[in-house]
């Protein structure tokens, strides 16, 4: 539901898993776990060897089976879990795909117990990517919690284009994801933690207010807790900047058929986060009706 800047052309509203037409075609495949490491707190880094991986565009995600696959299909837990693609590196016959995730419930707890050599089912890449920043436009990426994983690739691909600011927030320094990865990019990185244990003390939205105070064309991208995103959207609107939000609704399929991931729209009705998003213009969303 967002205007896609070249090279990515606007997709037919209903093309489902083909929505990112022109983008890579989704596949369903078993991937081998190369590494599944705790990075402090409840955060883990998962590296997968994905045969035939077609590449992906910033903001896209995969559906991951909850826990390692065994010779026996286990039906509890049942549903695959949506996870943003942090980044991928092509290799012989496929790619190494990286996922950063947080242990929060049954599925991610099982995922955290998965060992190298075990396999996970991967369906993806899914969803429509972030619109790429227009030439000369400043990209301000505001991410918190697990949302940080969703914006890394956008930062990585935009760094050589225009100016990219990355503002990361977390409760504590231990909860902060991927700081080193962003630090290695040619972007201006600022951090805020609620307890001040890393970066500035306070909310990431405080960093955003200062950034928006600076003049010049800018587009805000945000992913994280609902309350944070809504606040970011309000600040962006107040400063007359466009704002793209990446939503994290519950999903059963990930490719537009279960209608489970509906996001309420300001103009009424719903969009499907997996198919029409996860990236939306902030102004499209009826924030009050979003769980």
């Amino acid at each position: 539901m967002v205007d896609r800047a070249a090279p990515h052309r606007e997709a037919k509203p209903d093309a489902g898993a083909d929505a990112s037409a022109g983008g890579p075609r989704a596949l369903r495949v078993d991937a081998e776990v190369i590494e599944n490491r705790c990075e402090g707190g409840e955060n883990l880094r998962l590296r997968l060897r994905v045969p035939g991986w077609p590449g992906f565009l910033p903001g896209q995600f995969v559906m991951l089976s909850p826990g390692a696959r065994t010779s026996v299909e286990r039906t509890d837990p049942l549903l695959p879990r949506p996870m943003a693609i942090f980044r991928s590196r092509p290799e012989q016959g496929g790619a190494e795909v990286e996922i950063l995730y947080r242990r929060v419930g049954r599925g991610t707890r099982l995922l955290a117990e998965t060992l190298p050599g075990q396999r996970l089912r991967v369906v993806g890449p899914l969803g429509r990517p972030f619109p790429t920043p227009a030439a000369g436009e400043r990209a301000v990426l505001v991410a918190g919690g697990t949302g940080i994983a969703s914006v890394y690739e956008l930062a990585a691909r935009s760094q050589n284009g225009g100016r990219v600011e990355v503002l990361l927030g977390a409760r504590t320094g231990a909860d902060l994801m991927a700081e080193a990865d962003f630090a290695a990019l040619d972007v201006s990185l600022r951090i805020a933690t609620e307890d001040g244990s890393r970066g500035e003390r306070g909310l990431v939205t405080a960093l955003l207010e200062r950034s928006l105070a600076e003049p010049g064309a800018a587009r805000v991208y945000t992913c994280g807790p609902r309350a944070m995103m809504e606040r970011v959207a309000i600040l962006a609107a107040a400063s007359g900047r466009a704002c793209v939000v990446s939503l994290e609704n519950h999903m059963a399929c990930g490719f537009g058929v279960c209608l489970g991931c509906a996001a309420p729209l300001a103009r009424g009705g719903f969009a499907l986060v997996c198919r029409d998003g996860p990236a939306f213009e902030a102004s499209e969303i009826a924030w009050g009706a979003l769980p």
Partner: protein
Amino acid sequence: MSDALDTSVDLGGIRLRNPVLTASGTFGYGVELAPFLDLRRIGGFVAKSLTLEPRSGNPPPRIAETPSGMLNAISLENVGVEAFVRDKLPALPEGVTVIASVFETEIERYAEVCKRLTGVPRVAGIEVNASCPHVKSGGIEFGQQPQVLAELVRATRRATTLPLLVKLSPNVTDIAAMARVCEAEGANGISLINAVQALEVDIETRRPLLSNVLGGLSGPAIRPIALRMVWQAARAVQIPVCGIGGIASAEDAIKFLLCGATAVQVGTANYLNPAVAGEIADGIAAYASRHGFRRVADLRGALELPGR
């Protein structure tokens, strides 16, 4: 598979390449699954249920996970019959068998949607979803009351010359009686089961997990209930039965065929593995060959009961 094997089945006048369909609401309008599965590998699919006008559904959350199952409360969300005929059907590759599904809030509207679908080239048949709250009877499902179900089948039967399947609600005391009602009113077949009415709550927020409070339970958890109802229904009527409920493997599907189903529909399992329906079709053929069947259709009702 053995070339000798004939995998085709006849589902109340709908000729299917093989007995594996996908269930309404779990396969979208077909194109969504194309990246993962050649739609010609399966018998066909039942499209998301249609109403007269486009409808939007319940607010989120609409889905929740349960032990070996999931809850959903999507409500009537769909593009409407017109857009389906105009945009969705033409987008499908040739050779894909499509069964249209219909739900509505009043019998007259059900009949009208059936009329609109009749004569549309790509529509091989209609499945009437009787698991919808009947406004006039205060929200009780059409499929929960024999008289109301009879009226619904009669009206939709009159409205179309297409093969007519009626999809039954499992939330009843006597599924066989409901099956007989459909047969008596001229349905060409019955499909069962729809999702089982259920509830799930979050003990920390102390709220239901779904905005709609109640939802429909689907997935492997309900398979033994579905198998029982299919067995009871198949013994009660002569018209073909399409088995639905928790099917996630060829083995699961074969159980329904053995219990009297002519064909099956795969639902929730599509979400876990969008290619599963094709794998199930292959697996059924392999089983039939291994067990020396010439026709997959002969698996129907091949269950042996203990001689008691």
